[in-house]
């Protein structure tokens, strides 16, 4: 790898586009070059730089599980310059992908434990990668609980997969929408994620909590987890600072002594507490 230009992306063809929610799309991407597909590997929690030639690069996680080979998936909300251009791409178009970058969720170390996933809004994608990875190696884990909330029913992403998880006996799924975001036939919870979490009151015994969501949700979720008996080293999250390069050079994701792109994006609450609050 050392003789290669680290800024050159893989060329990926968009195989499938799924509209997840208003403004939110999932791309299934396949390598243009067969060799790349074979040599490429990643782990749960890693991210990449997705690009449209002539527009630029944008950072998001790999939303598919490393246990599903041959393709990667990403889910993004149309918001800025690059995601707006990505949103206009069609099936069959070629996009760029650099990665995988960053550290991973320590799934190996979590063997034999229960997992509690807490996600809000568009933050389910980074979690989905871990969820499927855990479900595909279900025997390694005890209880799996997912608490997922969004602004409204419409804003919930991966609706088919939510249905699938709900129907599985080995997963406990709690979905919630913000007050006012429900529809007449909504059967899930109504309320913000931290409150629903408190109400659900999952056991903290031998359990790892993985939290991902907007800063405000994270802020109110940590105290609830602590109340439920989770210790700092058993709470994990993934940060989303603004990034450009993905490997600790361009400087913008620098928080204290870490580069979120290289030393993160996965941090335990214990590690997070040592960082200045610049994320």
């Amino acid at each position: 790898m050392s003789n290669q230009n680290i800024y050159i992306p893989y060329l990926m063809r968009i195989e499938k586009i799924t509209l997840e929610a208003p403004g939110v799309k999932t791309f299934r991407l396949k390598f243009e070059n067969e060799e790349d597909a074979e040599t490429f590997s990643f782990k749960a929690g890693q991210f990449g730089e997705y690009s449209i030639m002539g527009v630029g690069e944008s950072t998001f996680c790999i939303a598919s599980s490393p246990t599903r080979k041959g393709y990667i998936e990403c889910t993004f909300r149309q918001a800025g310059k690059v995601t707006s251009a990505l949103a206009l791409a069609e099936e069959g178009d070629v996009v760029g992908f650099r990665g995988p970058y960053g550290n991973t969720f320590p799934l190996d170390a979590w063997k034999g434990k229960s997992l509690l996933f807490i996600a809000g809004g568009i933050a389910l994608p980074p979690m989905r990668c871990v969820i499927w990875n855990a479900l595909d190696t279900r025997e390694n884990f005890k209880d799996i609980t997912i608490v997922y909330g969004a602004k409204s029913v419409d804003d919930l992403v991966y609706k088919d997969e939510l249905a699938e998880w709900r129907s599985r006996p080995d997963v406990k799924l709690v979905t919630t929408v913000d007050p006012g975001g429900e529809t007449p036939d909504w059967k899930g919870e109504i309320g913000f994620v931290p409150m629903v979490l408190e109400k659900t009151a999952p056991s903290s015994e031998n359990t790892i909590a993985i939290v991902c969501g907007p800063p405000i949700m994270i802020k109110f979720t940590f105290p609830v987890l602590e109340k439920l008996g989770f210790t700092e080293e058993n709470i994990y999250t993934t940060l989303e600072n603004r990034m450009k390069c993905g490997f600790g050079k361009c400087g913008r994701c620098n928080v204290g002594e870490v580069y979120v792109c290289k030393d993160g994006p996965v941090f335990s609450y214990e590690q997070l507490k040592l960082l200045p609050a610049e994320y």
Partner: protein
Amino acid sequence: MQTENYLIRKPSLEKLFNDLIGGGKTIYAPKAKGDLALFSDVKTYSDITEDYIVTANSAKLVVFPRTEKLFSYHKSKEKTEITDAAGSTFPDVVLWGTRPCDAAAFIPLTDTFNGDYKDIIFNNRRERVFLISFSCSRSDEYCFCTSVNSGPGNTSGSDILFTKLSGGDYLAEVITPKGQLLVSENSDLFETKSEEDKEQQLAVVATRFNQVEIQAKLQNLFENPVWDDKSRACLGCGSCAYVCPVCSCFDIQDEAHGNKGTRLRCWDSCGFGLFTLHTSGHNPRETQGARWRQRILHKFLYVPNKSKIAGCVGCGRCSRSCPADINILDTLTSL
């Protein structure tokens, strides 16, 4: 390697310059522009100015240009083709007239672009750069190289260091094998000289602070009024970062013309509010004070904690160029 000392007569400098130009080298040297001296592509020896403490711009531009191609692409309905810019021919550059601080800056700069991920575009450029530095006989109130482990006659980073002697000739300290090669190729210009009488020719730069102490202090200074106080006059421009020989934050941008285009890297600065702004509107570094803190902490805490040396070489450019006279020494010495 062991530093070897030679003597080079004043007229031979011009000969050396012309030989290098004749040999196809691109030479960047200080050229006067109004009151400033700027590292510029120089073809004629007489265009070089000697009247400068440091140049206004920094020498990093030869290894880390303000804008450079990472690759170019060509898109068609069937295919997207990428042309790697790392494969292009990079010029053989001689930096002529760098100061010891400029040369020292190449060390942290090279560190940043290497490590786990090696930036071969940077390395390709770096390998082709030859540094002919000149010791400082003058300094001003902005200089503080001696506080960051350097000095007016420091050799690190340079291939050859010239020091003007009292008679007008120059002491040539040859520091690297690359430098030795140049000497052997131009052996008629270099005379053997063993005794070293360099110190008395050098500028006196007082030590203004102890870097290790500063580093220790900064460890617990994240929340402190000093950051807002010292940056109050900040205008939020990027001149401090852009003239800094060590600052290497960058942006990656695409530029398209029809179905062709370029992905390029260009300078960026932590002083800009947009640097860390998320698309959502959330900004981890909301105020100019937080940005100034990042600049200081990065150079004097985060970098030295990792690699022992500071992310600053004490050239004072940032303070000189600041339109609001925000002085880095002033901040550091008031901690």
